């Protein structure tokens, strides 16, 4: 409990520094909270704001994405992330998706894995209470009402359970990362001799899909292009 209040004090101090324009000092304070193994969406958000104010695109986008992971629907985070993305140089066109999969992805992204898990449990409880309501009530209309509603809830529960597992596997298999260097050449093979297939600039979000020894990561862009970059040029979320 002592540790908690201390971190909150540091957070407030950092906010004061931010408010007075001492962004670098504020970043140091925020980082010290992270070093104490504590985090929160707000902490990442403020940290990202600091980097944005210092015009450091890479870290700024990195921490906004981190914040978004903890609070996927926060409008402030989405808004400021938009500002940071406007500073980036790469404009990568997304591969067009079918409406259905777009909707699915949007739904999946609206909650974190644990968020979905909590929803599942709430639905399980709701279902059980409705089912017992059906079992225990005597009047015909009540019984019917409880039965219909409990079966609807059961179907919803299964859907949400499916989404939960899908989201979990998605989170496990996609490792987004942010480009941290000003400019990097993406190679066609994991060595320095091979030719550069395209270049990326700071702040671009990529997906890590493979790795090779200590140094090389295979990345994929949202437009489907793939290539190899050195590990030090990216920072995984």
């Amino acid at each position, binding site marked *: 409990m002592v540790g*908690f209040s201390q*971190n*909150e004090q540091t*957070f407030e101090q950092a*906010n004061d520094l*931010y*408010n007075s324009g001492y962004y670098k000092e504020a970043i140091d304070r925020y980082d010290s*909270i*992270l070093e104490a*193994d*504590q*985090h*929160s*969406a*707000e*902490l990442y*958000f*403020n940290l990202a*704001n600091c980097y*944005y104010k210092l*015009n450091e*695109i890479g870290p700024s986008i990195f921490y906004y994405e981190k914040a978004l992971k903890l609070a996927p629907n926060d409008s*402030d985070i*989405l*808004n*400021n992330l*938009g*500002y940071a*993305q*406007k*500073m*980036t*140089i*790469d*404009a*990568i*066109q*997304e591969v067009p998706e079918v409406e259905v999969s777009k909707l699915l992805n949007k739904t999946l992204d609206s909650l974190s*894995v*644990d968020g*979905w*898990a*909590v929803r*599942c*449990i709430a639905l*399980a*409880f709701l*279902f*059980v*209470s409705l*089912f*017992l309501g059906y*079992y*225990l009530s005597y009047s015909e209309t009540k019984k019917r009402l409880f039965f219909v509603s409990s079966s609807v809830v059961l179907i919803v529960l299964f859907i949400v359970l499916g989404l*939960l597992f899908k989201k*979990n596997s998605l989170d496990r298999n996609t490792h987004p990362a942010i480009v941290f260097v*000003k*400019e990097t050449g993406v190679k066609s093979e994991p060595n320095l001799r091979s030719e550069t297939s395209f270049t990326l*600039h700071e702040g671009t979000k990529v997906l890590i899909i493979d790795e090779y020894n200590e140094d090389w990561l295979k990345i994929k862009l*949202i437009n489907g292009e793939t290539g190899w970059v050195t590990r030090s040029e990216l920072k995984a979320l």
Partner: protein
Amino acid sequence: MKPHILLLTFFMSGFLSAQVSFEAKVSKKRLGINERLRIDFTMNTDGDNFEPPSFKNFTVVGGPSQSINNSWINGTRSFSKSYSYFLAPKKRGEFTIGQATIEIEGKIYKTVPVKITVTAAIDKPKDPNDPNYIASEKIHLVAEISNGNPYLNEAITVVYKLYVAQNTGVRNWREIDNPRYSDFWSQNIDVKGINIQQGTYKGEDYRYVVLRKTVLYPQKTGKLSIEPLSLDVTVEVPSNRRDVFGRSFMSTVNRTVSSKNRTLDVKPLPESGKPENFSGAVGDFDFKVTTNKQTLNATEALELKVTASGKGNLKLFKLPRPILPSALEVYEPEHSEKVSTRTSGMQGTISDTYTVIPNFQGSYPIPKVSFSYFDLKTKRYRTVTSKRLIIEVSEGPKNTSGSNKNTPVTPTENIIPTNLNAFSSFKTSTNFQPITSEPFFNSQLFWLLLLGPFLLIPFIIFIVKHRAIRALDVSGNKLRKTTRLARKYLSDAKKSLGQKEQFYNALERALHNYLKSKLRLETSEFNKEKIEELLGNKNINSTTLEGFISLLTSCELARYTPLSTVDMQNDYKKAASIINDLDKQLN
């Protein structure tokens, strides 16, 4: 005799007519522009109406001269007549000298056209018998090259000087062949007026005139030759004849003078330390990236200027393109050059001006732009990097996601949300959680909470069922009810120890209810005899029975007699032990 002669003439004419030839002969088919060509049109039978071809592309410097050669050798007559012309080519290239025609014995004969190739001026072998030799000794055209071993793209100057000896004069000159600098970027520098200067040529005093200056930037490495310049000069040369005063007569000669073929050895730029973004700039430059404003409103235009200034091959390289955030609308740049060419090379400023329009508010960094060039002084590459600029776009249209799609230039569809509110400031409060927390999903608690409720279903069903069965059992219920009441009254009695009335009331009720439950008695049949009889039937031993009866009587008596707390306590203990005994014996 007559027919004989006739026959002979017939034969002869037949013979002769078969032998008529009319040919064009040239002294050479390939010649330099500074050389001359002799063409002879020769026939072996006299003819009339000679028509020379049009010698276009050539100047007729001599001729036509006619010569007739008629000889009798061993009774055979050989005849030849020729028209000769001396031609000087006007320009380089391949030319055809057309057909000449002649009428011989009523027939028209034509020569075969001759192809002549005129090349660049060649060094003429010296011929002391040539009348132009003196002129050639006295007049020289020299191409002076500032640097015979330049780097690629390094400026060199070629100065053409016409040296004239002191005792000769030049009346007039005309350029007949302009060198083509095919492997160079070249620019002529106008020479204003003729400024006669004194100089030496091979140790002798000469006068000279600078005819032309050219700045060259080699575009290829290796050995490159500079083609000579050729001039047609009218020279006044002193002749051997002298007038009565001993002054020599000046004779006028037309001469073609050419500078010598010069070869340059162009060095490639060093490979070591060549920056990646090197675009071929060689010289000494200053590089800047500037904007005309730092803060502006959205949809207003901004000018971004990339400038390189200094000395070097300014017109021969491209300025680096700044890489701008994709959210900015950037139009094609306007290129402008303010470059003057002097003998030392190009000098001035080139710039690319980009029109940039930010559509939305925010701050946009313009990354550093690097420009590399090869510095000729230090013989090293140098990289100039501009400062990073930040454009602040203060006011922007909000919710303009529709208008963005109509913008003309950026074809890339931005993935960036366009309808942004103002930049949100920091958040003031937070709840921290450990970073390395175990995920809730797949934890034991998760599965327990997910499946627990389902296990609850059969459990609750079991309880409900059990209760229903018990609800059906009426007598059992009654029994349980009276037992419960008995217990209740007994505890009431215990509470009211010391208050005589209440205590014995409760005790009596407790005993009644106890019997009701155990013996299935109704309140109506409640009297001592009945109790005695029933308990006797149940084989209760006599001491317990008597104790029970005495308790009942003491309950009745107590209403009328004063009793102490100690008695009450004794009665309570007695009741408890009797109920205990009855419980044991009844079951």
